[in-house]
């Protein structure tokens, strides 16, 4: 069988320069899956729109072994970008990014099950006049939907290589790599007639862009069409303002059409769709009308007005139930090994500061946090499943009604849901939100969703709050669910407040694509879990180890006189003095100076609280785990003999951790995403202030009621 022309032509090895391909397509059409398949990288994949919010660069190798640079760009429906992630795609393709050269070639990936809609972006990209390869992904799903796509005919009509592909099953990759290896990719036969009423304006604006804004003729035409499609010229032009002449011509045409009553933007989109419709009619045939798909049947329950909530509640309960039950054995295993290591060192070394530093400081601190690794892995496994199956978008759909009451829409719930794992990817995911005010509100409230770093604190406090193995697991699950619900309710309340005060605006209109359900990609979920486990272990081995050692030093020096009790030693140490300094501030919420040391240290990262408690309360390092630490906490007293960790204090401490902003990494990301210190400072103050006020109300209220 003869190979198609795009495969047999000259190989790219003929040129010396490494070609650069940009990978673009609609959200959720499989770009990151293809990028990973081509480059061997492990970029995060999810079955919901907006997984990729920043460009990623990797190297693929042609069938001839030549390196090819591939840039994975965020998904977009159009080059007329409306959100920061879409602007990245537009700016890279138009050569506006100082950090990224304009790609030589473009890989357009489309979802074959919805060719017509996906071709809209392809059509705009073909306007750029650059060599394009079209990848028809999900051909298996298209066939299952009864669609037959004539790939050869599409290739003939467009005049560019068209590759049928199933990226998830690695099918079509060889043909794609062969096409990417070509030195002489043809330019598209891109026959599209701009509507007669608008054509003179396109020509005049394009000429002005060439002369006044130094654009190349093809980019100028594409940009002229974008300027007319999107009436916000600042948004289209990006950071470089248009020249006065171009602006003047654009305004003159717009005012003329406004007077004539011409909907020029709508006309342009419609004429593009007309051209695409004609193309699709020639290449796509619906062979069989299929009945309701599996996705339809699942959606009938999962998005149901009542059952949708039941499913969401069941998923969350199952998640927390698993955290408490499945993690027990691996936690005991880690605990045993940490204790054995500590014992070995204790028996091998003579007593002294160095031995205490290693066992009480390093092993006690790091081991106390590492023990929670299995529970964090279970959390990420569940979140990975939700992302991989397509449930995330449904959760956003269910939450839309609630979100609209606080002035946001369901789209804002995806970053908030991601923040259950970690606020950093959650805040990054807000780049898909179109309205800048809504995006800022979502950034401000996302860290209120309880992240995985709070998990060790909650678990320790629940262990102290409901001691004894006979307490039903559902009681513990219930307390945990309450904390997560409290954080979520707090996020909703502050979103409502900010939308009515600081960042006033109408609730945005939600329109969002629901991807079809897919079987979970267990390999991707496992890779993501391993990646997160590595981040957690690395953090335990660096930040937490460092803080534990420093904290041990601060709590061991200066030395108290010989014969002093451990408590007296801690009280007069550097850490003790710092704790005493903030005690007047935290005493009204039931915390003493020793807890104060934990609060100060956990501003680096919340889970440091647990290791700090291990060091401060001098728990038996031979078998340091939640149970003995819990015992040490429960035996801690105020100077007047009262118990320090009463159930009320444990509960108040959890409330404090739900609301307080205690994560330097999150503050750094918020600073980057909001371009300044104003909002991260505001966020730290409002969250920590709320944490104090609520803790005060709970503690004082609880005491007044006799708890």
């Amino acid at each position, binding site marked *: 069988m003869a190979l198609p022309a795009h495969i047999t032509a000259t190989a790219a090895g003929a040129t010396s320069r490494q070609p650069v391909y940009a990978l673009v397509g609609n959200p959720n059409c499989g770009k990151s899956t293809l990028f990973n398949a081509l480059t061997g990288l492990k970029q995060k994949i999810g079955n919901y729109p907006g997984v990729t919010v920043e460009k990623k660069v990797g190297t693929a190798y042609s069938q001839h072994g030549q390196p090819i640079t591939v840039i994975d760009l965020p998904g977009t*429906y*159009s080059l*007329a970008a*409306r959100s920061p992630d879409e602007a990245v795609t537009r700016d890279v393709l138009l050569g506006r990014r100082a950090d990224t050269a304009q790609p030589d070639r473009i890989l357009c990936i489309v979802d074959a*099950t*919805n060719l*017509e*809609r996906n071709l*809209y972006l392809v059509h705009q990209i073909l306007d750029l006049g650059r060599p394009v390869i079209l990848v028809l992904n999900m051909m298996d799903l298209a066939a299952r*939907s009864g*669609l037959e796509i004539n790939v050869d005919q599409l290739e003939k009509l467009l005049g560019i290589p068209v590759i049928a592909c199933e990226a998830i099953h690695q099918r079509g990759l060889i043909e794609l790599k062969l096409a990417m290896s070509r030195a002489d990719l043809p330019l598209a036969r891109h026959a599209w007639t701009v509507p007669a009423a608008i054509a003179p304006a396109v020509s005049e604006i394009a000429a002005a862009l060439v002369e006044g804004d130094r654009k190349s003729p093809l980019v100028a035409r594409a940009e002229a069409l974008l300027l007319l*499609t*999107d*009436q*916000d010229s600042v948004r289209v032009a990006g950071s470089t303002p248009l020249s006065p002449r171009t602006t003047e011509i654009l305004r003159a045409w717009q005012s003329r059409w406004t007077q004539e009553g011409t909907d020029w*933007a*709508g006309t342009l*989109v*419609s004429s593009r*769709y007309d051209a695409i419709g004609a193309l699709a009619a020639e290449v796509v045939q619906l062979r*069989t*009308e299929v*009945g309701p798909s599996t*996705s*339809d049947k699942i*959606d*009938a329950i999962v*998005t*149901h*007005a009542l059952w949708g909530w039941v499913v969401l509640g069941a998923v969350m309960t199952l998640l927390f139930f698993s955290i408490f039950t499945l993690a027990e054995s691996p936690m005991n295993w880690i605990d045993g090994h940490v204790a054995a290591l500590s014992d070995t060192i204790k028996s091998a070394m003579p007593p002294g500061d160095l031995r205490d530093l290693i066992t009480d400081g390093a092993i006690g601190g790091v081991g106390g946090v590492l023990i929670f690794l299995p529970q964090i892995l279970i959390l990420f496994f569940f979140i990975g499943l939700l992302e991989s199956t397509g449930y995330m*978008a449904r959760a*956003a*759909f*269910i939450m*839309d*009604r609630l979100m*609209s009451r606080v002035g946001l*829409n*369901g789209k804002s719930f995806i970053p908030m849901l991601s923040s259950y794992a970690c606020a950093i990817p959650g805040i990054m995911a807000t780049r898909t939100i*179109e309205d800048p005010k809504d995006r800022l509100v979502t950034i401000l409230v996302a860290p209120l969703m309880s992240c995985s770093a709070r998990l060790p604190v909650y678990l320790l406090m629940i262990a102290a709050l409901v001691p004894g193995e006979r307490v039903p697991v559902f009681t513990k699950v219930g307390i945990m669910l309450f904390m997560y619900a409290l954080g979520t309710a707090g996020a909703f309340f502050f979103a409502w407040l900010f939308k009515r005060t600081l960042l006033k605006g109408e*609730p945005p*209109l*939600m*329109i*969002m*694509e*629901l*991807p*079809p359900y897919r079987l979970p990609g267990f390999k991707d979920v496992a890779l993501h879990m391993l990646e997160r486990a590595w981040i957690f272990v690395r953090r335990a081995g660096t930040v937490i180890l460092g803080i534990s050692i420093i904290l041990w030093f601060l709590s061991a020096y200066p030395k108290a006189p010989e014969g002093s009790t451990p408590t007296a030693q801690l009280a007069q140490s550097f850490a003790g003095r710092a704790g005493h300094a903030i005690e007047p501030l935290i005493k009204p919420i039931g915390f003493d100076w020793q807890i104060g040391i934990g609060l100060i240290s956990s501003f680096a990262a919340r889970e440091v609280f647990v290791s700090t408690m291990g060091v401060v309360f001098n728990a038996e390092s031979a078998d340091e785990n939640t149970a003995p630490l819990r015992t040490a906490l429960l035996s801690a007293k105020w100077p007047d003999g009262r118990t320090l960790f009463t159930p009320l204090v444990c509960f108040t401490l959890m409330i404090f951790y739900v609301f307080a902003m205690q994560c330097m990494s999150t503050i750094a990301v918020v600073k980057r995403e909001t371009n300044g210190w104003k909002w991260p400072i505001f966020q730290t103050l409002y969250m920590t202030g709320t944490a104090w006020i609520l803790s005060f109300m709970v503690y004082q209220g609880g005491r007044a009621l006799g708890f």
Partner: protein
Amino acid sequence: MNREPTTAPTPLCQLHAGAAGRVCGLTGDTHFCQRVREMGLGESACVTKISGTTTIICQVSGTRIALSHAAASHILVEKITPPAPVAG
């Protein structure tokens, strides 16, 4: 199959579940209209409402799109008879 309009324009949110319509007008602000058009829900697109009253799911060219009630109220459709199922 008959896909001729059968009624006067009605907002998409008022379409019954299972009913099909052809988009005949958009009444939201310019940005909303453009995004809706770019997502394939522009004038003359055929849309089937799947479910929902407060938040709506509809199907356009094989894609499921979720819309808030307010968004769906800005999309005017003419009811059409849905395509008859084709035997196997």
